[in-house]
Every structure is written in C-alpha cells, then in structure tokens.
C-alpha cells in the first residue's frame, strides 16, 4: 500500500513538473508560469503537516532541478520547497484550513519559495540574478500561483486525503 501511495505521489509530481514546463508556457505572463509543484507541496502541508510536506517538497524540488530544460545547480529548488513545506505545515496549525487562510498560505509560500530560489542563485552566482529582475518576477509568480489556487489546491488536497493512511485517533 505504501508503494502504491508513493507511486501516486510520484506520478502527481511528474505531472505537475511536466505541465509547468511543457503546457503552461503557452499561457505564461512574461515567461512566468504557475508553480504547480509548489501548490502540490502547499496542499500536502495543509493536509498532512510539515514533516510530510517538507519531504514531498524535497522530491518536488529535485524534480524541478533535474527535469529538462533546467540547468541551474541541482538542489536549489529542493531547498526552497523543503522550507516552503515546513513553513506552510507549521502555519496550518495556527491558521486552520479556511479558504482565505489557504490562499494566504499559498501567497506566502510562493513568495518564500521564489525568493529563496533567487537568493540561493545570488549566493552561488548561478546565474547572478540582479535584484531588480528578481523583484520583477516574484510578484507576478505570487499572483499567478494565487490565481490558480482555487482550481488546483482543492483537487490536490482531496487527492492527498484519499491516499492518506488511516491515522490513529489522538
């Protein structure tokens, strides 16, 4: 059963990453596309909590880092999404899971994720992103992620609940 669950999660990740690079560029805004993998990680954080989300974020980030046409240093998106999963998971415990809170969580996560990725690029000079360009891209990315939230997040959360192992009541 665990293997089946891992398989479904892997398929979801691959679908998110491939749609992100192969389908969404047709509707990109100045090259910015919605970060579906990040939305998946946030959904996991809201349903399952920080540990699970951070782990999923690690693999989702690695998938973005390694899938063509990515050419940056591997591990940078992984780092960003681990933090996103952890933070979103911690916030869930305080914020509850109303629709408004979910949207704010997505906006904050998108901001944190994209900023962390840009910052790690600045530190590693890979490429040395000028701050002005980062500042131009990040708000658009946040808005696009929030716009897609009502379509992606409920679906992803329902799917993740379905494949959640039964928990012992506590």
């Amino acid at each position, binding site marked *: 059963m665990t293997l089946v669950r891992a398989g479904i999660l892997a398929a979801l990740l691959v679908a998110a990453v491939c749609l992100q*690079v192969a389908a969404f560029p047709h509707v990109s805004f100045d090259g910015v*596309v919605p970060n579906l993998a990040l939305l998946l990680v946030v959904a996991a954080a809201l349903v399952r*909590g920080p540990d699970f989300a951070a782990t999923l974020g690690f693999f989702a980030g*690695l998938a973005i880092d*390694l899938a*063509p046409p990515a*050419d940056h240093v591997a591990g940078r998106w992984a780092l960003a999404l681990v933090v996103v999963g952890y933070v979103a998971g911690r916030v869930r*415990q305080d914020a509850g899971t109303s629709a408004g809170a979910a949207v704010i969580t997505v906006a904050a996560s998108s901001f944190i994720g994209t900023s962390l990725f840009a910052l790690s690029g600045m530190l590693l000079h890979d490429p040395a992103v000028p701050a002005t360009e980062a500042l131009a891209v990040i708000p658009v990315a946040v808005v696009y992620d929030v716009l897609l939230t009502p379509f992606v997040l409920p679906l992803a959360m329902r799917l993740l609940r379905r494949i959640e192992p039964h928990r012992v009541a506590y």
Partner: protein
Amino acid sequence: MSVPSPHPRPSRTVVVLLLLACFTVITLDVRGGDDSPVEPLRSAVGSVLGPVERGTAAAVRPVVAVPGFFRTTKGLRDDVARLEAENARLRGSLATTDIDRNRAAELDGLLAGARSTGYALVPARVVAMGPAQTFTRAVTIDAGTSSGIAPDMTVLNNDGLVGRVIRADRTTATVLLIVDQESVVGGRLGSTMEIGYLRGRGQHGDDAKLDLDLVDQSVTPARNDVLVTWGSRNGAPYVAGVPIGKVTSVRSSPSQLSAQATIEPYVDFTSLDLVGVVVDPDTRGDRPVITAGKQEEQR
C-alpha cells in the same frame, strides 16, 4: 501553552535532515562542475521526463491551436491582402539589391572555395520552456543524441540565431537561449565587419535585448546595423554567418571609453516552435537532415 494541539508537534529532525540533504546536493553539484555526481542523475531524469514532456507538448499543441479555428474568412482575406502587399514590397527591394548580392556572392564563392556554403540542419520542435522563476532562459527540443545532436551545436530558426545546445539526452536536448545571462555570442557588425561579444540580459518577452561589447572600442555601431555570428573553430558552439539581431540604440557616456549598443534579436523567444540544429552534413540519425545549400538566397 497547556492547550493540547490537535496535531502532533513536528519533529525538527526530518526538516533538518532534508535541509542537510539539499545542501549536500548543492555542494556536490557546485564543486563537481561539469563532471559532478549529479550529472548522471540529471541525464537519467532527462531521459525519463523528456519523452513525458514531448507527450505533454504534443497533447497541448492542438488545444493551443484552437483560437486559430475561429478566424473568419474576412480576417484571412485581410491577411492575404497584407501579405501580398508585403511580398510585392519585398520583391521590389530584392530587385534593387540583386546586383550587390551577386557581387557579394561572387566574392564569397572565391574566398570560400570548395567549402560548402549551406548548413545541414536537423529540424526539431520546442516542447518545454524553463519558467522565468528559474531565471534561466533555456528550452527543451524534441531531438536528442539519437538524431545526431550533441552539446555545443548551433540552434537557429527562420528568423535567426536561437542559442546553443548545452545538454543532449537520447530523445531530447536542452538549448540555452542567447538572451540568457550566461550566454555570450561572438558577433560581427554587418556594415563595418567589426567583431564584438553579445551578452544576454536574461529578460523574457518583447523586451528581451542583448548588450554588445565591441573589441575595438573606438568604433561606434550605427542604428539598425545588422549583427551576424562571427563563428568559432569547427563551428562549435556557433557557426558563422547566422543573423542575430539589429542595433536598436547606441548610447555613449563620458565615463566609458566605448559606446554601449543594445541589440534586438530577430528571434521572438516567447513563441519559439520549429528550430533547426546545425549538424555535420554526414550525420546519420532517426530523422532526416535538411541541407540548405541556397540559404543565402532565402534571406
């Protein structure tokens, strides 16, 4: 704090371990350079996800074409009229430049001798585009080593230079666009034959521009001057004579010795689709190689 939380407190161990794993991967990849241990993993993932991306792009392509179905006959008629007018105008300008062209072709023929003038191209389609959030301008094309594509090959399309291949997997390859910040192309000014280096700015969309640094700093490029690739040894990574773009603005400041020129590339990088990869004419692959012998006349 005495109120019991409905969720178990997360253990810090997991997230700390994951962060350490991230730093390990980053360090391995940064220190390893070109032969880092991540490289085989990257090509393995590329071999698996490449075909999936190709499939996704193939599935999405008809959907993207849907708005085209709703064009009216009138719209198409207008298009035909506009294109005919443009055609007539181009024909006119072609007639006047024919003499110059022939003279140049003769000289070219003398200089080039028996060397073949055209390039051999492997056609490919763009299936995936790196998001702007990654701050890298790279695309995936649906042809790889099985079609004879290898790293450091020139990629161009109808309009001009697109970029160069930086990684080739079996069925897909990654192309670094010339507008990427890490991209440097040797360029030659059409009017004065001066050489220089073109650097990308990493921008996307309509404001994607390149910066030109001329080797001879006393030369000031003129507006609308055309830049072509200067070419390098064995045609890697760029073959010579591919049009790159035209000079849109020149500005000189007292603090700098040379004038700074901004180049607008001919290629529209937001709507890349069919591209050609310059290969050796004898390449044997799983798709036909187009040899464009009459390339000069088409331009």
